[in-house]
């Protein structure tokens, strides 16, 4: 059986950064497995700018951001094997792979980093009533057609969901000459970044219908019409509010789903709130020596945070290989009022210098506090002027604050007073 000290599944920004930091921490035998024909992950099709302001202190496009990491890895002995699909993963860290070059191959890994990213939700599509005609795409699939393969998918477009991919595609299709008639969002707020509402919709006078959804789809072979209705507080369509759009294309931007089939096969414990692995503060999953980072762990909106998280995962994987697993008492983290989930889900009491917690809020807040409680006792509090579900939040708790906590759990909650 082929062996490697560290195997990284997925060659997107998460996998690339994890490899780089493991290499810098002294691991020399690193293999990245990527099913696509090129490394870079989703960034290859994200040709817009807005990447890297935190990490590189300049604004890059997706391909440029990925290119920088691929370039940095060229200076190392990290092997990137493209066109290679990981089919199965076991709890004792054996990977089953296929590729045109090596055929079927089993690989035994000293440690593994899961960096498989996300795929798009299509659930919205299934629940849309009406015809099953062509012309309905997920926004990311349309993005790949346009930016990588060079095909325009339509001329008159309605977008369901106001996630970032949908917003970015509204602008992209408009610039390429299509007419984007509407962006329709079920919730009373947008799921995408504010900057994308401004520069992708407002710049082109594309209307955003909040608290609306698609209630009918018509067309014989190709899509011809969609009906959009307003919804009530319970997200049920209100009769009499229908608007009809003549269009040939409906793009769905209804969220991303971490791609955890392999994690499940291996028996990694999954958190139903994130749909990603339950991890410790060092990104280690419930299986020792298996780490997770990037979109497979929880959905990120900023690649810079993916990079930072993946650097930590790579370093932790290196430590595991060199010094063996971490032990020590665990403390659970809970989400309280207003908080949807936390990553990590638990941490070891003896965290070295600080504990960083990532989460999303459940609704929009202005001038609110993020508080951390140990039972009834508040141990930390952070002020935020603005928080929204579309923007991942994070707080950093210095280790000295954690010295005197009881056995936990700690609760993160939003307070408005």
């Amino acid at each position: 059986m082929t062996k490697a000290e560290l195997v990284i599944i997925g060659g997107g920004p998460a996998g690339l950064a994890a490899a780089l930091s493991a290499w810098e921490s002294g691991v020399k035998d690193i293999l990245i497995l990527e099913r696509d024909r090129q490394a870079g992950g989703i960034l290859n099709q994200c040709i817009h700018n807005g990447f890297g302001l935190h990490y590189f202190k300049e604004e890059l496009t997706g391909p440029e951001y990925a290119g920088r990491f691929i370039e940095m890895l060229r200076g190392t002995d990290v092997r990137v094997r493209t066109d290679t699909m990981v089919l199965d993963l076991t709890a004792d860290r054996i990977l089953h792979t296929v590729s045109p070059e090596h055929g079927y191959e089993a690989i035994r890994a000293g440690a593994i980093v899961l960096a498989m990213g996300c795929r798009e939700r299509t659930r919205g599509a299934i629940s849309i009533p009406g015809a099953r005609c062509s012309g309905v795409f997920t926004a990311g699939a349309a993005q790949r057609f346009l930016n990588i393969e060079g095909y325009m998918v339509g001329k008159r477009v309605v977008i369901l969901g106001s996630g970032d991919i949908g917003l970015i595609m509204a602008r992209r299709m408009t610039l390429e000459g299509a007419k984007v008639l509407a962006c329709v969002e079920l919730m009373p707020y947008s799921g995408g970044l504010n900057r994308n509402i401004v520069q992708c919709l407002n710049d082109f006078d594309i209307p955003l219908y909040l608290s609306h959804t698609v209630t009918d789809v018509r067309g014989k072979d190709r899509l011809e019409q969609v009906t959009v209705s307003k919804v009530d507080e319970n997200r049920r369509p209100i009769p009499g509010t229908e608007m009809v759009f003549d269009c040939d294309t409906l793009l769905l931007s209804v969220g991303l789903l971490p791609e955890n089939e392999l994690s499940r096969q291996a028996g990694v414990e999954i958190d139903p709130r994130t749909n990603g692995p339950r991890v410790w503060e060092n990104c280690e999953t419930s299986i020792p020596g298996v780490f997770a980072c990037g979109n497979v762990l929880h959905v990120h909106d900023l690649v810079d945070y993916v990079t930072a998280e993946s650097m930590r995962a790579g370093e932790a994987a290196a430590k595991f290989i060199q010094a063996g697993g971490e032990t020590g008492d665990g403390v659970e983290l809970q989400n309280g009022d207003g908080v949807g989930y936390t990553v990590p889900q638990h941490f070891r009491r003896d965290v070295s210098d600080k504990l960083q917690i990532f989460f999303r809020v459940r609704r929009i807040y202005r001038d609110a506090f993020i508080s951390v409680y140990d039972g009834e006792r508040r141990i930390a509090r952070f002020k935020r002027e603005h928080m929204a579900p579309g923007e991942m939040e994070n707080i950093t708790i210095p280790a000295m604050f954690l010295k005197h906590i009881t056995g936990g759990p700690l609760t993160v909650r939003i307070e408005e007073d």
Partner: protein
Amino acid sequence: MKELICITCPKGCHLKVDEETFAVTGNSCPRGAVYGANELRNPVRVVTSTVVLESESFRRLPVKTDRAIPKAKMFEVMAEIAKVRVHAPVRVGDVLIANVAGTDGNVVATRSVKE
């Protein structure tokens, strides 16, 4: 006072800009002040797109304007970009159109393709 959302970085700060003095509040960094004032005087955007690529492995080459160009010129810039064909090899940063549509900005490649 005009209320704006800064689009310079994904943080998306909520800005208030004075219409007469162009003074900006609500920004978390100096770039926000520049953006806020500009947005009222002369709004500019970076344009990104793709061009036809003749290469063994890829059909499209991603490109961008190397500086933000006047918002009103976006479609003119797109029309120029649509005329470009590039042969591999090409390197990230290679200038494909200089001074595009008279904006002082150049259209440059955003990835390298060897063959």
